[in-house]
Each structure stands twice: as C-alpha cells, then as structure tokens.
C-alpha cells in the first residue's frame, strides 16, 4: 500500500508498557493478519528497541523492511510503524501528534496506570489520528481537542467552549508541558 508515488500510509500505532505488553494498539495494514503474528511483531520490535534511550527525542530503527519510530515516557512506549519507503519525518510527526495528544488527555500524568484508567480517551485518540492507514491529523492539541469535545464527562467546560477557545486552552497546556 505504501508505494512511493502514493499517499503516506501508517501500518500501525502501538502503545505498550515497559514489559512490552499492550496498552492500546491499532493495526491498519494486512502485514500481520493474525493476532499471534501481531504479538510476535510487537515482541520482536520491543526487544530490539527496549535498550535504547528514546526519552528525550523520538528514536528510529529499521526492522524487517519497516521503519519504526518510537518514544518512551515513564512506563509507556509509543510506536509508529510505516513501510521502508516512507518519509521518516512524516511518520515522526504522527508519533509526535499521538504523544502530544496523549500527554494533554492524561493531563501530563503520562504513565500506564493513567492510560488504562482513561483507555477510552486513548482509543478515541488513535481513531482521530489515522483512519485505515491514512493520516487524519498530526497536530497533538487538535487531536486532544477532538477527543475531549466528544467526551462530556471528561472535562465538562471544554465541550462547551468554542473551537478557538479550545485551541487556546490546548496551546496553554502544551506550553506548560514544554516549560516543565
């Protein structure tokens, strides 16, 4: 699908814990048709990346003709996979969008426990980033805003805000994250 002349396409987005177990995963390609092949891929990828330091900047590697971009925070491991023809920086922007959105949605408490408690938000977040391999949105604050505006009980004032206001709040969130 990820032929060079066509659209950028994402093969999967994975959120694993520090043992390589699933928190939330979403596959968009047929490269791994069965659950066991998916698990095998996750295991292999996890073992190849776990020892690297991907905490400050997103790291990258090439495994089995797939480009994998990843970033670790606390006990959460974020991964985005694309074909080996893909523009690495586009894949990185998807990872960054996912990561930023999750940070906002979990109100900076980015760890496994918080992620599982808000699994609905994480799943909606995945749904808002990529649709069937096509990139929907890569801007973290916008993704978070789309997820949260649907979710009345998450943060009630947000859903009543207008788009611009939400934007501003989101930006503030982000600035705070960066300054921290």
């Amino acid at each position, binding site marked *: 699908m990820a032929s060079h002349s066509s659209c950028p396409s994402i093969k999967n987005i994975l959120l694993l814990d520090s043992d390589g177990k699933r928190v939330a995963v979403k596959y968009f390609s047929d490269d791994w048709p069965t659950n066991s092949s998916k698990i095998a891929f996750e295991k292999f990828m996890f073992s190849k990346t776990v020892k690297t330091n991907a905490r400050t900047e997103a790291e990258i590697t090439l495994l089995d003709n797939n480009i994998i971009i990843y970033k670790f925070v606390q006990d959460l491991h974020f991964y985005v996979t694309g074909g080996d023809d893909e523009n690495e920086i586009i894949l990185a922007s998807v990872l960054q969008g996912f990561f930023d959105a999750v940070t906002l949605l979990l109100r900076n408490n980015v760890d496994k426990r918080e992620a599982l408690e808000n699994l609905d938000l994480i799943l909606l977040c995945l*749904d808002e980033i990529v649709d069937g391999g096509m990139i929907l949105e890569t801007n973290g604050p916008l993704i978070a805003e*789309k997820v949260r505006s649907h979710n009345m009980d998450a943060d009630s004032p947000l859903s009543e805000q207008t788009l611009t206001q939400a934007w501003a709040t989101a930006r503030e969130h982000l600035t705070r994250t960066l300054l921290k």
Partner: protein
Amino acid sequence: MAQPLVKKDDDRDDEAEYSPFMGIEKGSVLQEARVFNDPQLDARRCSQVITKLLYLLNQGETFSKVEATEVFFAVTKLFQSKDMGLRRMVYLMIKEISPSADEVIIVTSSLMKDMNSKIDMYRANAIRVLCRITDGTLLSQIERYLKQAIVDKNPLVASAALISGIHLLQTNPEIVKRWSNEVQEAVQSRAALVQFHALALLHQIRQNDRLAVSKLVTSLTRGTVRSPLAQCLLIRYTSQVIHESSNNTQSGERPFYDYLESCLRHKSEMVIFEAARAITELNGVTSRELTPAITVLQLFLSSSKPVLRFSAVRTLNKVAMTHPMAVTNCNIDMESLISDQNRSIATLAITTLLKTGNESSVDRLMKQITNFMSDIADEFKIVVVEAIRSLCLKFPLKYRSLMNFLSNILREEGGFDYKKAIVDSIVILIRDIPDAKEAGLLHLCEFIEDCEFTYLSTQILHFLGIEGPKTSDPSKYIRYIYNRVHLENAIVRASAVSTLAKFGAAIDALKPRIFVLLRRCLFDSDDEVRDRATLYLNTLGGDGSVVETDKDVKDFLFGPFDIPLVNLETSLKNYEPTEKAFDINFVPKEVKSLPLAEKKAPGRKPTGLGAPPSVPPPTADAYERMLSTIPECANFGKLFKSSAPVELTEAETEYAVNVIKYIFDRHVVFQYNCTNTIPEQLLEDVIVTVDASEADEFSEVFSKPLKSLPYDSPGQTFVAFEKPEGVPTVGKFSNILKFIVKEVDPTTGEAEDDSVEDEYQLEDLEVVASDYVLKMGVSNFRNAWESLGPDFERVDEYGLGPRENLAEAVNTVINLLGLQPCEGTEEVPPNSRSHTCLLSGVFIGNVKVLVRLSFGLDGPKDVAMKLAVRSEDETVSDAIHEIVASG
C-alpha cells in the same frame, strides 16, 4: 450463555501494579453489556462497558459470531442516548465489530440520521463509520450526502468524507469517480488537512490519466499548498510526472526541477526531506542537480533529532551507490556519526563511508569499525561485512587489513547469517584476489576447527577441495580436513572425505598419505561416509599402486554438475528398470521455471493426453510426454529444447490454437494445441497445413492429424520438419487450420452425420535463432569464462539507439538472446549510467556459450553495448552476434 473463558493474566503476577482491568473476563463483560438494554440508559456505565469490550478486543481476545452479533444489537440500542461521549464510543465499537451485511441494515438509518445532524462531530464520525461498513448498494443511497460533505465548511466533516472516498475507491471506483468536481473544489480548501486529503483522493481518481495528473501538478506547483503533508504529496506526484515526461523530452532542462529545488527551502522538515529525496531519485540525476539536495541533507546529519539524522544518512547511503563523489563533502559529518547512539544511524554512516572512502582512509576506518562491531546487532554487522567486501574488491591492495578484519570477526560470537556473510566474503576475496588466497584459506581452516554450523563447514570443505590443491603447499591443509573426520557429525565427515579425495586426485605425491586416511574412514559409523571412502579409494586406485589419476576421474571429482537436480529427479522417476542402464547424459539440462500453479499445488500433475478438460494448462513436462507418444519422433534423437507456447489466434476466437516448437538436432516439430470453443460443433480430422515457402531450408517429413476435437477439450496435432544438422536455421511458416465440421445437438450432445470441410487462417510462426539457445546457468561465471579461453572470443559494439532506461535495454537483449542471466546481473540498479550483464547457455549441438554484455549510456538516452561472446566453436560465437545484429 457465555461461559467465563480463560482469564487474561495481565498484571496477575505483579500484585503491586494496579490496573482497572485486573481480572477482567470476557464472559462477565458480555453479561455487563446487558445494561445497554436498560430502559433508563446510564451513559457513563455504558461507556465503561464499551471500553472494557474494546480493551478485550485490543488484547487480542476474539468474539464468536454469536457473541459479536449480540453485542452489536445491544450497542445499536445506545443510539437512543443523547450523550455525545457515549455516541463516540458507539461509533468506535461498531467499527471494531465490523458487522455483516445483513446486520448493517439495523444501524444504517441511525447513522444516516447522524450524517445529517447539526453537530459536526456526529456528521464526521457517522460518515466514517457508515463508509467503513457499507456495501455498494447502500453507497448509492448515501452518495448525495457524501458529495455534500466533501464541500462541507467544517473541515472535520470534509476530511471524513474525503478519507472515506479514498477507501471506497478500492471497492466502488465508479461511484467515487463521479465526485471529481467536489473533490476538485475541496483541493482549494483553506483548511490544511482537507487540502491534503482532497489532493490524495483527486490523484487516486486520476492516476491513470497522465495528462490530468500533469495538469494538476502544473497548477498546484504554481498555487498555494497549505499543509506540509499536502506539499509532500505534491512532490511525489511531481517526481512521477518528471519520470514519465523524461521519456520524450531530450532537452537539458528538466521540467519542474525548479519547484523541487524551491521545496528545499520550505520551513517544514518533512517537505525539505521529501524534496531532497525526490531529487536524489531522479532518473539520471546530474551532480549539479544533486548539490542543493545533498547540502540540506548534510545539515540534517548534525541535527539533534535521531529521525532527521537517520533519514539523511539513509538517503545519502543510497546516493553513494551511484554518485559516490557527490557524497564525499559530507564525510566529516558522517564520521562523527560512527559513534552515534543509534546503531542504525552508525551502521548506515559506516557503510556510506566505506562506499565513498579512498584507499588512504581504509585503515583508519577499519580501526573505527573494529571498536564498534561488538555492540551492534547481527543484521547491521552483515551490512558492514558486505560493505567491506565491496571495498576490498575496489582496493585489492588493501586485502591484508580487510582480510584480517574479516578473520577477527569470524572468531567472535555471531549467528548463522552473520557467519555466512563473512565466509561468503572471504570466499569471494579468495576467488578475485589471487594474493589473498593462501591467507584466506588458512582463516577458513581455522574457522572450521571450531564451527557450530554444519552448512558452513561443508561449504568450506568443498571450497578447500577445489582451491587447496592449487596452492603452493597443499599438504598443510590435510591436517585440518582430517581433523573433521574425527570430530564432526556425519554430514561434515562425509564432505571431509570428499575433500580428501580431491587432494589425492589432484596431487599424485599426496596419494599414499590420502589412501591411508581414506582407509581409516572405511570403519566410520555412518554408511554415507563409508560409501564415499570406498568409492574414492576405488576410483583413485587405492589398491596400493600410485598411478596418475585419469581424466574421467578428475572430471567426476572436479567437473561441474550441470544438470538441474529437478530434471534429474524427474528422469529418475520416469526411468523404468530395464536391460538398459540409466544414462545421465539423457537428462535434459534446461532450467525450467515451474509455473506458479504447479508450485502451489504440489503433487497435482496433469496426466498428459488423458487430461480432463478445464484443468490448468499442462506444463512443459506434460507436453514433452505427449511428444514421446509419437513413434515418428523417436528416432529424432535427444530433444534439445522446447519453446513456451506461442499463441496463433486472438483471445476469444472460435478456435484457439497455440504452438510449441520442439528443436532437435536435425528436426523441428511443431505441436499445435487446439481448442474448440463452439459447443454446437465437433471437429474431425483436424490438421494444420504449413506453408514453408519462406523457410526453404526446412522440408516437411510428416504430419499427424487429430481425429476429433470436441467442444472445450484441447487436442494436439503435430507437424515435423527436417533441417540441416546442428545449425540455427531460421524461417517463417504460415499456418492454416483445416478440419471437418459436424453440427452437434446441444441437448443430446450427439453429432449429426452431415459434415462440411472448412479452414481457418492462423497467424504466422517463426523459428528464430534464439530457439536454438538453451538457458543454462553457471555457478561461477568468472571461472567458466576463464576456462573457455579467448580462442573463439568475438567482440563487437552496437548502438541500441534511444531507450527508456538501461534496465529496459538490458531486458530486451536478454530476451532476444534467450540466455540465462548469471549472478543476478539482469538487475540494473536505478540511475546507473553503465551496467555489465553476464549470460550463459548452450547452443544447439551442445556448445557452451558465455556472453558478457557491457551497457553504457551515451548521451541522455542512447544506449551503447559491447558484446563479448566466448564459446567452444567460433561459428556459434558468430551466430550469437548475428542474433543481435539482426534483432
């Protein structure tokens, strides 16, 4: 109802870790899903249950058909709730369950209502869900709304419709193609991502229309493209247009290059990189065009972001294969990357440096690599080993330090693939650099002293047997080989015995010692080892007398085994034990590529003439068996070659006919495979009359008509010609199919008595020079080339005129000659300006032919070719040249 199934063991062993899903069970969650049916819906509770269901699916749990249906129906009840958060989870759940076609109906109306809702979020998501689960019939009902949605002023809605369009284009292209106007409008959208999605869809709708794509690119490269993603798309489409247009424009200026170059100054890194990569991949890119792209990539090399460094070094690594000089400017930055934390980046940097480095920098590089080899993964080590191998071939004088490096890493820990890559490299270096032979062989000997891989041990022993006896002091290898007979498993022992025998055969002085060793092997515990020892002792005359090894024995031990094993297997299976012993010389030597269907279904063999209708077309093998049923052909001798079927009729005509050409030394037989595609007809006495007036060296000897040809059951008729012996006689034959038609009553299937004679014009058939050439690979082209010698070498140069690219030219010549490409040289790396292709085969009369083709680009598109032929007969060498000259 559902029983509690196997518990998920998440976090169970780790009591301290809390998880909201601890001890979750599918059965109980399915029970909980009953809250969906409550008259008073608790939105929060329902959301939680959906989350639990999604969690289970996400962990790889599967729902049975019944369970999924139940959940699906329960979830559809939730459309009653007005809670937005819950609705969002419902959408997600429906997509995950992906209901079957008859279930989709249930939610269609709810989703269509949401599609027309005032709330943007409902509209956007309802579109995505509906398009995911819909089929063609429903699509035409909602098409109107989708068209509207594409130009909706809310970007979420527009993007949702456009993305759905991209997915639907795969299944319902004719519907989506009708949306062009709306999509076109969306391309102009002010929302950045809408533009990106619209551009992607528009291009996919028009991708087969070159002119439209070219127009699209022309207008957009002048206009404004807002999002970096859309800009990347445009760059891809632009390079596609450049690629296609470069075929017909000869002038120096490349269209759209300016646009690509301007993108190098874009503020977004992904656009800069996309443009730089596009420039490096241009066909026949010049160094002037490359320079600005290399400059931006060089900046990336020193970025703090690993992703940028990786993308840049990977692209430069590719450029280094075709334009090493263009990359040398980056060498300093590249060297600092050798110590990069990210090992992928470090490996790519090293291999790039090895490609661009010069002779003086080799030693320094090797030192740096040695430090870093121990902490990279095997797959990267293999890349490094391969780069070192090519470096060594480039700078043969440096073999000493490179060979030392290889032998050092050979001693270290490593997996099979890695070790194999090293051994292969040493073997190649030994073959290509004569000075490196003795040192290399000793390294290999030391390696097998302590090698855990049987495959590698046997390969090395075999190689020692061939190269060892040619060295200045062969006796020193014998100790290493005989050690294997003591210490190894049976497979290695057997191959060590063969190697010993080769030393004995090649060097008479060593014979007495070898005999002593071989006799000891007669007491081995394994029968294969004992058999080999016995065989060699007898063939070498191990009864004590030291005689000179005769030529036959040497051929047997050292000669190439040029019969494909598959063919040998088939022949052995077909052989029926009679008075006549099995003769290996009658095994065909042609490499047959098995048809795909055959590979997929092993064991299903067509049964020749008795094959029932509607089976897949018989294989060449089966055709040859048909030929052997004709007694007239029995005295034609051994079949030299059979061609692939050549169609003599258009597809879907009344009678389908194809022909197979069988080439014998003095004869040619045409086998016409005929199929009658008219159910109301029965054909009888079917024969092809061949007019050979344009093939005057051929004379017809016999023809064998087909008695009857019922509907849809293929039959064969044969025509045989005599021709001058052993020469590639060519000619053109015109064919007419003649037969008697009988009407068949379609209800009873019985033929009527009335018959009419009729004939049917077929297309002409040609026997060309390449019909006399047999594909046959050689394992080591260089050795084969040297051993044929320059006696009958013929060299000439040809201009092939303007060609699309080198690969196309190479393919054309390969097909024209009908020879087997060797060592993967039929693959032309993209953007290369020159290429060498090696071919081998057998010419009629069993004459070995080797061809070395050197291609070069002469000017922008003109391809020039140097053709060197070596064979065992000068007339054959000339004949090969004639094929090219007349082609």
